[in-house]
């Protein structure tokens, strides 16, 4: 069963990620990204990370991709991009070569060095309740400063986004600018 789920999800993930890279229309790329993220979420379930699978769907597919689609529609860049011309000569060949070389190195390392299937059945993650309690325990004890730092990071990024997209020299926000933004 796990094998079947893995194979189906792997096909979805790979097809989606290829779709992101190869799509001429940014909207199609964003929708391919949703497919990839969904496949990865199901793989998380397969790996017993139930909470993170839910977070993956809610945060990535629900918020981040919708933000991408908002920006695509806002900027009106949802037209086809001509990807047949190559701005820098030989760039694609070189990029593909570098990518495949990196992948080959990584895959060779994984195949030789990582011994698979040594999954302990009496592990911390296999506790019947859920791993949500364990995540919360670790998050609010060992990583509590990092957690507070991420709260500050999110606030800073929201303020930064508002400052950057504000139109300069217009102190009074009128109805029209609010509508445009």
């Amino acid at each position, binding site marked *: 069963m796990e094998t079947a789920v893995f194979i189906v999800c792997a096909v979805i*993930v790979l097809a989606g990620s290829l779709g*992101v890279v190869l799509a001429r229309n940014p909207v199609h790329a964003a929708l391919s990204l949703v497919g990839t993220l969904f496949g990865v979420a199901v793989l998380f379930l397969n790996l017993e990370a139930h909470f993170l699978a839910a977070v993956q769907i809610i945060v990535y597919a629900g918020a981040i991709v919708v933000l991408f689609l908002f920006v695509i529609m806002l900027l009106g860049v949802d037209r086809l991009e001509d990807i047949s011309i190559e701005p820098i000569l030989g760039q694609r060949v070189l990029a593909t070569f*570098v990518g495949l070389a990196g992948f080959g190195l990584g895959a060779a390392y994984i195949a030789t060095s990582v011994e698979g*299937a040594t999954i302990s059945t009496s592990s911390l993650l296999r506790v019947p309740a859920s*791993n949500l309690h364990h995540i919360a325990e670790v998050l609010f004890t060992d990583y509590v400063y990092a957690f507070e730092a991420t709260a500050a990071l999110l606030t800073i990024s929201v303020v930064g*986004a508002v400052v950057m997209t504000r139109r300069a020299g217009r102190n009074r926000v009128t109805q029209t600018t609010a509508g445009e933004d």
Partner: protein
Amino acid sequence: MVTSSWYLILAAAVFTIGAVGLMVRRNPLIMFMCVELMLNAVNLTFITFARDFADISGQVAVLFVLVVAAAEVVVGLAIVVAINRRWPLATADDLSELRG
């Protein structure tokens, strides 16, 4: 039986596709999506090792990666919107203003 090597190789493949896309594509939005692909590949690796070593810290790390990815997308898309207002239809090649 699916071993964890399969998950790791799948993650490596997704990371490779994202990296090649980042190097090849010119549209800043697509480049951001490729970064998201790479982050997801790393998340998959984290969760695979979290199961392998029975250590929940891997899942906590994924949670932090998700938060940082959300912040990165917010700031990145704000930059894209600001650039698009100044130079409409700009690609990554046109933006050499900050080049030293």
